[in-house]
């Protein structure tokens, strides 16, 4: 009998304590960010999709070795490169990333021998079709260079080699990109 | 007893008449649904409509207390337990009866119903009902309550006894009908 009343008393008390907690937080400031108006600052370490690094000279560092392509478990990287007649190195003509398949493991970035790719900070990615996420990274790099105010210049090969026509190399990838 | 109104209330009386007819229509239509519906749940809903109509008639008779009790007890308790039983028992479609027997039954029902209606009706309408000589008390809940606990106290106690027995009995019946010693998880359900 005593237990019966004790339980009622303890129960009511516990309910009141719970209500006190919610009342306490009810009077405090809200902690949410109102998304379209406010944005939470994103950590610089954020791992977005990959991007080609734009050097100070205004070019990428990719040597078209294909390590990233092989390291990628999902096969989302496609590299197109040509070896111009007489040139020593391959020249990158297309670097496409199929972000719909990417699992953000980071293997490509870590295997790259020249650190030519990095994670982008592209947090607010939206698109209306899956084709919006087929990125042409070369075009993106050119655009990034433009935004940074650096002229996209292909480095001149060693002078003894006969040079290929310059203008074509830079513009070969499709202008429409991300 | 005659109910009269001052003549400037004619519109009010007309509206009241229309409402009254509406209540009668509810009562009768609900009753028809209750006895004719194929699905049992429709029959119960018809009964509920009929009961609400009767409650309206009680209100027209000037006794709001009984009207309220009608809704509270009949609609709130009896009908709901009926719907509940229908849901629990999930009775089969009633048309599965042999059509031959059903037809006889319907004919029998019509005959008995009409016969009763005719005999009782003739008796009712042959008599000219007149008001009682004098009114000794009102019809407020207070009066009814005093009546229940003084003049009708025996009936009142009997009714409460009957209700108690009904509750206990229904619990016992419904519990015993439940399965044949079916156990789940070591305890009998």
């Amino acid at each position, binding site marked *: 009998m005593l237990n019966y009343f004790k339980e009622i008393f303890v129960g009511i008390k516990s309910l009141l304590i719970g209500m006190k907690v919610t009342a306490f937080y009810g009077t405090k400031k809200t902690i949410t960010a109102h998304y379209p108006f406010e944005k939470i600052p994103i950590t610089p370490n954020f791992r977005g999709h990959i991007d080609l690094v734009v050097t100070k000279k205004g070019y990428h560092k990719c040597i078209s070795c294909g390590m990233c392509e092989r390291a990628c478990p999902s096969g989302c990287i496609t590299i197109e490169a040509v070896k111009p007649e007489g040139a020593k190195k391959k020249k990158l003509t297309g670097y496409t990333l199929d972000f719909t398949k990417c699992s953000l493991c980071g293997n490509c970035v870590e295997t790259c021998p020249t650190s030519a790719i990095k994670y982008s900070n592209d947090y607010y990615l939206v698109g209306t079709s899956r084709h919006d996420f087929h990125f042409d990274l070369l075009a993106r790099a050119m655009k990034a260079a433009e935004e940074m105010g650096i002229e996209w210049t292909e480095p001149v090969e060693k002078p003894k080699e006969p040079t290929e026509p310059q203008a074509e190399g830079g513009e070969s990838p499709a202008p429409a990109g991300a | 007893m005659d109910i009269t109104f001052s003549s400037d209330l004619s519109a009010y009386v007309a509206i009241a008449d229309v409402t009254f007819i509406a209540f009668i229509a509810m009562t009768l239509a609900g009753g028809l649904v209750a006895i004719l519906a194929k699905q*049992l749940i429709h029959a119960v809903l018809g009964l509920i409509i009929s009961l609400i109509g009767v409650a309206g008639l009680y209100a027209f008779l000037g006794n709001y207390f009984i009207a309220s009790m009608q809704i509270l007890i009949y609609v709130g308790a009896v009908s709901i337990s009926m719907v509940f039983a229908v849901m629990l028992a999930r009775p089969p479609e009633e048309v599965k009866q042999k059509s031959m027997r059903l037809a006889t039954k319907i004919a029998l029902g019509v005959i008995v119903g009409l016969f009763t209606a005719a005999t009782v009706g003739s008796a009712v309408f042959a008599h000219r009902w007149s008001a009682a000589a004098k009114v000794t008390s009102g019809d407020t809940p207070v009066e009814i309550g005093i009546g229940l606990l003084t003049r009708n106290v025996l009936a009142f106690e009997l009714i409460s006894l009957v209700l108690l027995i009904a509750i206990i009995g229904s619990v016992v019946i419904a519990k015993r009908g439940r399965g044949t010693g079916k156990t789940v998880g070591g305890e009998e359900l």
Partner: protein
Amino acid sequence: MIQPTFFGNIEVYLLVALILLSFGLYGLISRPGLISMLISVELILNGAGLNFMAFNTFTAPDKTEGATFTLFVMGLAAAEAAITLSIAVAIYRRFRLITADNLSGMKD
């Protein structure tokens, strides 16, 4: 002074009560199910209650008697409904059917 066409007449109430009674009788005889029969009984009881109230209002010298009896009828109806429904549920549990005709085997 005017008189209402309908609701001031005891005959209207009595007629409605009578129709309810005959509806109930018809249902009680023609319907096979236990719950349908219960519904019909409720209709009959309502007819009775309406009669009580009509007489109470129009002709009774004591205005509480009819109301008291109607209350009693309601109480009885509730008790009866409780019992009938529990029987119906119990029978359904055992025999899987609740038609009154087929209950002759309920002797064990």
